[in-house]
């Protein structure tokens, strides 16, 4: 078991070398990007072998207006652990990218039930479809909302 975040990231690299697309490990953020099809395996490994037992947030980002333009959305799972006190000070996030035209990925609610509402929010705000989600429907937006998902960069709020 690794207790520093660097060791943890190395551990993941050794286990999922092929799947890891990029890795940022610094004081600002620790983010490990994996392929969309590998995220379930990585998540399962993190939960079962490393004790990361809950999701603190699910962030989606529309990369279409970033400096490095990409027609994709990035989905970041910010993980946390309550069962391993030695990791309480550590931040860890895993992410993957999905096509913006038809964003789909497998839901991680089976692994972390705590991400149910977070994924629902990403669904309505970015239109990402989480497959196998138990209750994928609107959460915060009103029922009469008929525009595109509002946190996409294409959506312009009225008056802006």
């Amino acid at each position, binding site marked *: 078991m690794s207790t520093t975040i660097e060791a943890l990231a190395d551990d993941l690299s050794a286990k999922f070398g092929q799947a890891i697309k990029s890795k*940022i490990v610094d*004081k*600002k*953020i620790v*983010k490990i990007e994996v392929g969309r099809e590998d995220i379930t395996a990585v998540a399962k490994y993190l939960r079962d072998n490393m004790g990361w*037992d*809950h*999701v*603190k*947030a699910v*962030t989606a*980002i*529309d990369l279409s*207006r*970033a*400096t490095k333009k990409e027609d994709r959305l990035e989905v*970041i799972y*910010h993980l*946390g652990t*309550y*069962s391993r*006190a030695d990791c*309480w*000070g550590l*931040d860890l*996030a895993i992410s993957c990218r999905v096509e913006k035209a038809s964003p789909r990925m497998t839901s991680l609610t089976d692994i*972390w*039930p*705590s*991400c*149910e*509402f*977070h994924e629902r929010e990403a669904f309505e*705000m970015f239109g990402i479809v989480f497959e196998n989600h138990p209750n994928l429907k*609107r*959460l*915060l*937006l*009103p029922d009469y909302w008929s525009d595109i998902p*509002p*946190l996409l960069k294409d*959506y312009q*709020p009225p008056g*802006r």
Partner: protein
Amino acid sequence: MTVLEKREEVRKIEIYDTGEAPLTVSYGPQHPGTGHFRMIVTISGDTVVDVEPDPGFVHRGEEKMAEYKTWITNIPHLERPVILDSAGIQYPYVLAVEKLMGVEPPERAKYLRTIMAELQRLGSHLYWFALYGIFVGHATMFLWCFTDRDYIVDLTSLIGGQRITHAYFVPGGVRNDAPKNVPRGLLREFNRYYRMVTGKELTDKHLEFRKYVLAVCEFFDGRLDDYWEMFFNSEIFIHRARNVGILSQGDAIRLGVVGTTLRASGIKYDNRVCNPYDAYPNLKFDIPTGERGDCYDRAVVGFKEMRESLKIISQAVEMMPDGPVKLKQHPINLRVPAGEAVARTEAARGEMLYYIRSEGGDRPYRVKISPPSFRLLPAIAYLLKGAQIAEIPPIYWSLNYWPVEADR
């Protein structure tokens, strides 16, 4: 047969006896006291068989708005979702921006931030117990907490210039220093109440800011004893809250709950200690935890936290060094280097997490807020299932859920 088993037995009988189809009702969205939130509750007889939390009635699009405002003008609107704990909600934003800029605030600013955050935690907890009290039929608690909270709010107003929404934290420090002296009118006003409750008198030496804060802390410490006798140790409350809405340690982890709810289930997780920031590493305080994880434990953990907050404030005000309170006056179109940062702090209701992505411009590319209330939603659904109708208010209020914070 234990109390718990007996409860289970009663529940079974009550579902069995109705002979009617389950009824689905809306609990809310009018909810005096917290903001608008609805629970779609399915009941059979007196038993809740299913609950679906339906947030979003006070969704303001804070995250979208943050992409259109500059780094500095974001601060006043990001604190709006939780005006009671406005320091708590903007704290991680400021920390994350500082991480991106690679700066650290001066020592004095760190202490001032800590004092402000703890004062708001006190104010927020008092508000919580005021409403918790009235919803379980204890009107005195409501009146006491609101009266006392005003003196805490006076103090935040003295430091930050506003009663609740003061936009006090800025990247690289705090907006302004605390005053050296307290206005005579404020001391007179507090003294009136102080004399009424304690029979003692404050003097002119309490016009000094440090002495005044210490007097307020000492006074509140005594007040908490009164609260204990009046509310937390009262039969009315114990009967409504003991063994109701039990959240085991395993379930707390599985559902990813935060704050007092998590600690009441026996997990000693508090960002002020396990992921310390600003002045917290220099201060001595305890993290209260519960054993059973029921509504009563959750309230008592919150109660004990108030005592710890008073301890923190009185230490911080003594230890606070002199010096500048911010690095420099930031221009309104401050530019933040490109990058991504995550920061988390312990707000009044639990862990507050921000993710910020900058593309190097004068405004953020993406701001993600993960507030503690939002993370309590799974617990609301889980705890209310199988409870009785009369148990809905104690369970709901014990979680300290704040709809506006969850909706953003």
